[in-house]
């Protein structure tokens, strides 16, 4: 079969053929494929948000998260087997991190789920590497001029997520409540978490 025919083939038939060959050669069993598909579908920004909230309320976990994101994700019950290593970038009063993949759309799927459409867009990928403050302004995010922006271009083997700063006004909140204010865009770095519950109406 030529490449063109493979590209035009019915995807369900192609999947059945490839998974059949993989099983026949003992490389990957149908059960393993089903498990991986379920694990991929389960992943959502809620996983990353729970890790962020735990880091905000447990300094020991925060230190482990920054040292080895993969191990910290596993500690939070997320299956990292076969996933690229996870790096975690800490926002501080001096530095604000923004993640982009200019070459394709590398994204920390294990902890954030499927990448949003805008993360994969050529506009986001091209502009973030050159004009991050302009991109952030489009999101309504203003980072003070004396805070350095660090754009992390995810070009190779790592996947990166941002550990945002805990917003003021959330003192005494439970980890569960804190997790509710952390969005995917906060963990990519185009926004910062609001100090208000998602259900609360904006004032």
């Amino acid at each position, binding site marked *: 079969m030529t490449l063109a025919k493979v590209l035009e083939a019915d995807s369900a038939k192609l999947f059945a053929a490839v998974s059949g060959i993989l099983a026949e050669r003992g490389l990957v069993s149908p059960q393993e494929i089903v498990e991986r598909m379920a694990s991929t579908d389960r992943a959502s920004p809620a996983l990353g948000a729970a890790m962020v909230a735990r880091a905000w309320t447990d300094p020991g976990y925060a230190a482990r998260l920054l040292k080895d994101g993969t191990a910290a994700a596993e500690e939070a019950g997320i299956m990292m087997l076969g996933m690229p*290593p996870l*790096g975690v970038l800490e926002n501080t009063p001096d530095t604000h991190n923004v993640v982009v993949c200019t070459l394709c759309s590398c994204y920390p799927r294990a902890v954030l789920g499927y990448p949003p459409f805008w993360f994969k867009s050529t506009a986001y990928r091209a502009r973030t590497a050159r004009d991050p403050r302009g991109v952030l302004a489009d999101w309504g995010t203003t980072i003070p001029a004396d805070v350095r*922006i*660090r754009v992390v*271009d995810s*070009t*190779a083997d*790592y996947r990166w997520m941002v550990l945002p700063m805990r917003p003021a006004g959330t003192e005494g909140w439970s980890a569960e409540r804190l997790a509710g204010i952390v969005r995917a865009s906060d963990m990519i770095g185009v926004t910062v978490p609001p100090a208000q519950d998602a259900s609360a109406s904006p004032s």
Partner: protein
Amino acid sequence: MTLADGIPVRVKDEWPEAVGPVHCRTPHYIRGKHGMVVRHLGDFPDPGDIAFEREPVMRSLYHVAFPFRELWPEGSDDELVVEVYDHWLEPEHRA
């Protein structure tokens, strides 16, 4: 090659895609640019080898930081950090 944290490096000004088919993870905008090693991220099989079904060479991967003013004419005090494999990096000796 082992590059220590904080040492100045230059990304090679090479354009292998002009010669033939390649799978290259070094973005064009950092080629020939001067940066600084942030840290060694680990050793990984060369994606260029994997893409062409060659037995992969293990490459050291580094996080390298570039000031925006090194990359773009309009510049700024912000910085950009990229994962770069060691065979693309040359250590520099700056005064």
